[in-house]
């Protein structure tokens, strides 16, 4: 099967240094990829390279089977991009901001008008179609920009910070929309700082750090590389005493026990160990208000990778790395 995106040694520099440094990955069609990393990690440059806006200084890529450098227009015909800034011309109305894009994308005048109306209504902006966008809130601007990215029903979507500036209801709506798009089989690349939304949506994650791809894969796979064993939480309603922590650590199958403000965080061989740990806590007179295994989230994985990178680059001591392994943030 042709990959939706294939990058091989993709490299791009600016006067300030390398923005993307030998990035290699392959994304299958229909996947939702969370492109993560701190500011300046190279997320936006990667999107620009993959959409043929920037030319790589080394390496190559293929997007939906086309080379973005040689056939940029073919790539851009099939991709939709939501830029971090909505990019609306405030001298134009909501409809005008979309209509010119629709016309450039090949819609006829009537087709463009219909499609724009359809999308404005889908995004709850139908009654604002003839208003200048200068008076729009951040959320409304984002909705117009999302509608613009979807005008031509793209096979692949690049969404740069799709929920930044949105209120909780707007965020929920956008996440539901992305979910819907992914369910339709579209490939989505989500460049974001919001790990919660990335965790809810993405089935693949890529961590960029100073232009280098430091991790790529399914969050679960990456988690299993980072942590062995199964995480679990005992809610004791209060920090346990040292003796209780030691007793829990001594339970066969418990690899590690660590106290926190509300109870104990455990690493187990498997889930069958959990009832035994609960029994030990109860036996020591602790009130157990909850007990559950806890799979690492995308957020846990991301921060663990970031901390590993920091440790590798000497920004943290080994203690920091050890703490990261336990999911502490």
């Amino acid at each position, binding site marked *: 099967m042709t990959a939706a995106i294939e990058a091989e040694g993709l490299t791009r520099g600016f006067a300030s240094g390398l923005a993307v440094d030998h990035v290699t990955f392959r994304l299958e069609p229909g996947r939702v990829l969370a492109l993560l990393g701190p500011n300046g990690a190279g997320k936006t440059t990667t999107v620009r390279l993959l959409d043929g806006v*920037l030319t790589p200084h080394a390496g190559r890529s293929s997007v939906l*089977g086309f080379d973005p450098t040689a056939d940029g227009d073919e790539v851009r015909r099939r991709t939709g991009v939501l830029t971090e800034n909505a990019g609306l*011309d405030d001298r*134009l109305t909501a409809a*005008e901001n979309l209509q010119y894009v629709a016309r450039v994308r090949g819609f006829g005048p009537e087709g463009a008008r219909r499609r724009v109306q359809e999308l404005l209504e889908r995004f709850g902006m139908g009654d604002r179609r003839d208003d200048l966008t200068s008076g729009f809130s951040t959320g409304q601007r984002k909705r117009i920009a999302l509608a613009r990215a979807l005008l031509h029903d793209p096979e692949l979507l690049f969404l740069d910070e799709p929920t930044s500036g949105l209120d909780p209801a707007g965020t929920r709506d956008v996440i539901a929309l992305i979910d819907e798009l992914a369910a339709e089989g579209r490939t989505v690349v989500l460049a974001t700082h919001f790990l919660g939304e990335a965790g809810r949506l993405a089935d693949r994650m890529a961590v960029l750090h100073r232009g280098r791809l430091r991790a790529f894969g399914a969050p679960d796979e990456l988690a299993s590389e980072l942590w062995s064993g199964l995480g679990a939480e005992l809610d004791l309603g209060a920090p346990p005493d040292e003796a209780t922590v030691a007793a829990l650590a001594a339970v066969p199958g418990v690899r590690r026990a660590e106290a926190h403000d509300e109870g104990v965080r455990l690493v187990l061989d498997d889930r069958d160990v959990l009832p035994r740990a609960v029994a030990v806590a109860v036996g020591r007179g602790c009130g157990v208000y909850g007990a559950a295994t806890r799979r690492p989230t995308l957020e846990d994985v991301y921060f663990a990778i970031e901390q590993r990178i920091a440790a590798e680059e000497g920004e943290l001591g080994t203690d920091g790395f050890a703490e990261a392994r336990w999911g502490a943030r």
Partner: protein
Amino acid sequence: MGGTVSGTPPVDRTAVLTIVGRDLRAVRRSKAITLPMLLVPVSLLVLLPVAVGLLARSAPTDSVQRALESSVLERLADPILQFPPRERLVVLVLGYLLSPLLLVLPLMVSAVLAADAFAGEKERRTLEVLLHLPISDRDLFLAKVLSAYVPAVLITWVGAIVYAVVANAVAWPVTGRLFLPFSQFVAVVAWVAPAVALLALGLLVIVSSRARTTQEANQLGGAVILPLVFVAAAQASVLMLLPVLGVVAVGLAVWLAALGLLWWNARYFTRDRLASAG
């Protein structure tokens, strides 16, 4: 899914015209752009000729006669000397000294619109949207150039018609006939002015595509365009006194310089450069 597309595609006229239309619509709604584009032509092509023309109409004719005959421009002044003495000053002022100010219009309009079309897109953060559209670098460049060029030429032509009407109306009590347009005036308006607009645009594209804001583009553009304005104002009077073929030859030189500059600009107008200049 996929493949390779080769060869140079034809110009996507729909995409180009759509972007031109979008730019013009936006410009029409911007007072910061339309006001100077209205005030400067009204001052130069209506108020100034009315004021100066009224003064010239009532000035004594013998001093004009002596000045023209003793001038180093004696040969160049021949076209004016063909007019009856009482008409000479008003024709000289309105036909030969003020009418070349028309060439300031394409310079000014090109400068203002080029700043909006290139640096303005960056400032409004709308450039990124254009860069992610399926339009080639060449077509995008063409659209942005046309967005500034077409209004510059149209405003100049409309300005020329308005000027001719105003100048003839002011001079009528003295001349009793239409003295504008004469052939050099037509050649300057129809042939030289569009070339001047393109030349200014060629220079302004270099400045504007490197500037981050419209203000920066206007400031840098002013430094580039002002000398051209002075040259245009100073030399254009002589242009009006040349034979028509001379005007055509000067226009041709400006066209060649403008097209050369534009070709050079087009080679360096790439998405990559625009996105990198951020």
